[in-house]
């Protein structure tokens, strides 16, 4: 670990260079409020379903919000599980906003009644993101559960009728829905909403279905072309920076922000490097230990390690390395690939052999809150979470760079 401290942060330089050394506080913090969920989506990143008996209490959540305010974390992505299941959800929403911590929360829509939609429309500083993984029930429901398409559309209707502006429709791009990108955009436009596309990760229950559902190589290229054409009005959570290896930078940082600008707090207070990395390997600490979240963020061995210069490993000799930076750490880990090698969806095909290796070992999950029936391979259950996003950083000015936080953190 001592090597961690030998690298010296540069003065000036690009933001990306600065971000690689980490920030004093995250700019993209995801907080899963509960593992409880009424759905059992096949690709749930957090393997949600059942409430954890050690879920943080209301008071503990308020203390975290107080700390985030002190650290000037201006905006938090709330997810789960289905966060609105928590009886104190609406209280915590108010509490956060009153403490200058803006909220975007992800929901499957089941509890966004007309009454709640009116409440949200009357609340400043809150964003709502409704998860939907098919532009039709036929495509959506097999992944997210029977009736979940209608549930999401009802929520979007309620929000629109209440006058809530600019809801987000969050879609995990899969082999089965990638042909619906235009339809998703149309759907979003119909509701005055913004489309958000994110990458299918082999995390949580996603590990069970990733082989069957991640986009094919041909589809990845289609997605890249579509994003170049339509990306301006579409959020991506910086999900697709591995596609930058095709040539054009994707909107966003094109940088793995794990432990540097991004992290996750889970329902029991464990802090992980990113929302896709809920595993002991990427656990930095717990907010209830020692001096709370700030200490974990600023001093945990894991995060200091992630902020030390990374080597490209097997990717070093690749001409595209500067574009894709080796891709997503979590995607590599949960497919059993080396962390310093290519992304499992490397567009240059550099991971194909490794994925075919019969000796490849998929890491065992270190937590699972799935309900008994929800696991394809015998385990638990559901919802997608919010993942954050980066901005379009333009280098037009040597002293400042600016970005809409919506594009940074959603």
């Amino acid at each position, binding site marked *: 670990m001592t090597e961690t401290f030998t690298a010296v*942060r540069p*003065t000036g330089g690009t933001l990306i260079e600065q971000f690689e050394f980490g*920030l*004093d506080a995250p700019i993209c913090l995801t907080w899963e409020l509960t593992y409880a969920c009424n759905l059992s989506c096949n690709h749930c990143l957090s393997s949600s379903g059942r409430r954890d008996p050690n879920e943080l209490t209301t008071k503990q959540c308020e203390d975290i919000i107080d700390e985030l305010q002190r650290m*000037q974390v201006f905006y938090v992505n709330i997810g789960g599980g289905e966060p609105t299941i928590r009886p104190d959800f609406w209280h915590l929403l108010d509490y956060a906003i009153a403490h200058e911590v803006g909220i975007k929360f992800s929901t499957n829509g089941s509890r966004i009644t007309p009454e709640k939609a009116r409440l949200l429309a009357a609340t400043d500083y809150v964003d709502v993101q409704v998860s939907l993984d098919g532009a039709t029930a036929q495509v959506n429901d097999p992944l997210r559960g029977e009736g979940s398409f209608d549930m999401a559309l009802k929520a979007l209707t309620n929000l629109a009728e209440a006058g809530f502006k*600019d809801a987000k429709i969050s879609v995990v791009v899969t082999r089965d829905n990638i042909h619906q990108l235009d339809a998703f955009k149309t759907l979003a436009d119909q509701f005055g909403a913004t489309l958000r596309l994110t990458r299918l990760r082999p995390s949580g229950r996603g590990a069970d279905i990733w082989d069957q559902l991640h986009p094919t190589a041909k589809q990845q290229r289609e997605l890249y072309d579509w994003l170049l054409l339509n990306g301006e009005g579409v959020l991506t959570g910086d999900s697709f920076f591995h596609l930058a290896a095709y040539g054009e930078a994707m909107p966003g940082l094109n940088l793995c922000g794990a432990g540097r600008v991004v992290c996750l707090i889970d329902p029991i207070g464990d802090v992980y490097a990113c929302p896709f990395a809920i595993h002991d390997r990427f656990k930095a600490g717990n907010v209830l230990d020692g001096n709370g979240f700030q200490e974990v963020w600023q001093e945990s061995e894991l995060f200091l390690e992630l902020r030390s210069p990374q080597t490209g490993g097997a990717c070093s000799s690749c001409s595209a390395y500067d574009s894709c930076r080796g891709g997503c750490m979590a995607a590599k880990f949960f497919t059993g690939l080396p962390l310093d090698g290519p992304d499992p969806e490397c567009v240059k095909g550099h991971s194909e052999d490794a994925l075919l290796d019969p000796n490849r070992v998929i890491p065992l999950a270190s937590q699972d809150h799935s309900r008994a029936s929800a696991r394809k391979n015998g385990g638990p259950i559901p919802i997608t979470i919010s993942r954050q996003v980066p901005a379009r950083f333009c280098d037009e*000015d*040597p*002293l400042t760079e*600016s970005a809409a936080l919506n594009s940074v953190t959603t």
Partner: protein
Amino acid sequence: MWRLLSRPVVELTEILQLSPSVALRPEPFGALAYHFGNRRLTFLKRPELVQVVSSLNGTDPLKDVLQKCEIPEPNWDIFTKAIASLMKADMIHSLSPGMTSQKEPHND
């Protein structure tokens, strides 16, 4: 190029003030400026700029602020450009009569 053309000009004689909607968060490279109204996040990439922005008190003209912060005069140009881009993002307001800064419409 359109960005340059659309950027408001700031005069050294102008009296400026950080928007009350903006919070500055210190960072090792400078600071994050966050606008609670339009939710824009801007990175101030030099500690000297943070010092200048923090010193905009609504009473002294920009020139005095730059001098007080000991910014060498040959560098004033890049500082005024940075200030102008922060004005465009509604982070900084001009209090000088007739110098209404151009603002981007809020998106929320």
